[in-house]
């Protein structure tokens, strides 16, 4: 009996082990994530990273300025000037396109207005014709009745 009890206890512990492992790894992950979260929001971390990025930016600006002095001396066009020119050309192209589109939109609006007015005018002119047709229809029917009465 005791041996059987011991066996069942061993089986139970074995069954429990995987669950504990999963639980432990999830909690370890959660702990690491929390720690990383706190560290990446800490002012020390933020200021250090900002400092590194700033240093890199200033280094790049300084080296570019030194090169610009050299290229200017050699009378070679600068990349910054080329970029400014490209930007200005693109601006001009877009403004022209914008004006073109505004003009086209006005033409479309005018056409729609004309279609709308034309439709209204058509409605106005049709009605008298209908009246005239009605009148003539009525008079015809009267005549026919007269004829039938005579008959």
């Amino acid at each position, binding site marked *: 009996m005791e041996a059987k009890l011991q066996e069942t206890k061993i089986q139970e512990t074995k069954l429990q082990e995987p669950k504990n492992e999963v639980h432990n790894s999830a909690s370890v*992950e959660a702990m*690491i*994530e929390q720690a*990383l*979260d706190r560290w*990446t*929001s800490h002012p020390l971390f*933020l*200021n250090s*990273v*900002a*400092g590194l*990025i*700033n240093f*890199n*930016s*200033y280094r*790049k*600006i300084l080296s*570019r300025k030194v090169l610009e002095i050299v290229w200017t001396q050699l009378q070679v066009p600068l*990349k910054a000037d080329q*970029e*400014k020119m*490209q*930007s200005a050309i*693109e*601006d001009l192209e*877009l*403004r022209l*396109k*914008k004006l073109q*589109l*505004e003009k*086209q*939109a006005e033409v*479309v*609006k005018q056409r*729609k*207005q004309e279609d*709308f007015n034309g439709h209204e005018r058509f409605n106005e002119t049709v009605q008298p014709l209908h009246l005239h047709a009605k009148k003539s229809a009525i008079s015809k029917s009267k005549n026919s009745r007269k004829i039938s009465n005579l008959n």
Partner: protein
Amino acid sequence: MDLEVLGSGLNLLERSKQFGFNLEVGSLQPEVVAQAGTMKLLRFSKAASKAPLLIVPSLINRFYILDLMPEKSFLRHLCEHFSVYLIDWGEPQAHGKDLSLNKLLELHLDVLYSTVLLEEEADRAHIVGHCLGGTMGLLWSLLHPEKVASLSLITTPIDFSADCKIKTWAQTQTFDLAAFREAHGNAPSLFLQTAFHSMRPLQFVQKIKKILPQLQNQKTLERFLALETWSSDSRDLPGGCYADLVQRFFRDNCWLNEGYQIAGETYFLKDLRVPVSAISAEDDHIVAFAGTLRSEQVPLVPQFQHWVTKGGHVGGLLGKSPQEKIWPLHLQWLQQQDHTNVRLHSAV
């Protein structure tokens, strides 16, 4: 979809083909209707709706998240009922550091929007904005309410003071924004991707743990790979736009403070007067749920509808539950706005 649209995502796509996966990412074939700089206006469908629909995707990752797979395509769902247009922001060029948000709105978006109205001979269009595209749509609706039939905001940030990692990082005052823009021009895609992935550093491990037991499931693997293709496929952000977003929105929180200044005028959120709908995700770690649009922030809109979904930034729109429950409701709302638009504005 034209493979040119894919950037670094192309590598993952090609790799997955080598392993026998036939991923169809962005299966719809659009037509390029117009171009403004590097930005393209794409037409996906022509339908007999009264007002066309313009989708404004986020400025950061690529637009095909909205057409990720044939069975998970928000675009395809809208194409059945509307003439659908979409702005592909394209890859910014070197001179993009001078492209501010104001210029983007006044020139590029103006040209593309006017082209949509001209193509459809319409006076107004519905705008559906995703994430930062919603911010652009919101700005446009404030500038030109007479040209907007309705505005739909999908996981769009409004209150940038809501607690979230990006806000903490962007508000680091020691970070010299002007020097960064001067040095790098456009905000590099690697910089932005690193920031996004660092928001949840263990997410990659968790994804692998989730997918490993499902290696035999072809469909699940394809979905996972499609999403990873998109998630790794980012592009540079124009320097001017990046600076404006960080300064005006993350640091100054302009919607809730001094308003947004453009063309010599200041625009406030409370002045919005077009019908608005919003879809927000409760577990969104990129756009905090507490920072999405609330009805009290837009008191003058004739109609306001807000749907809240479970899930994160992407799952909140493309998950199974939003697809079954929110998409049909949103479509119904759009069709209702379309009908109202004809009734109120049919006079020529």
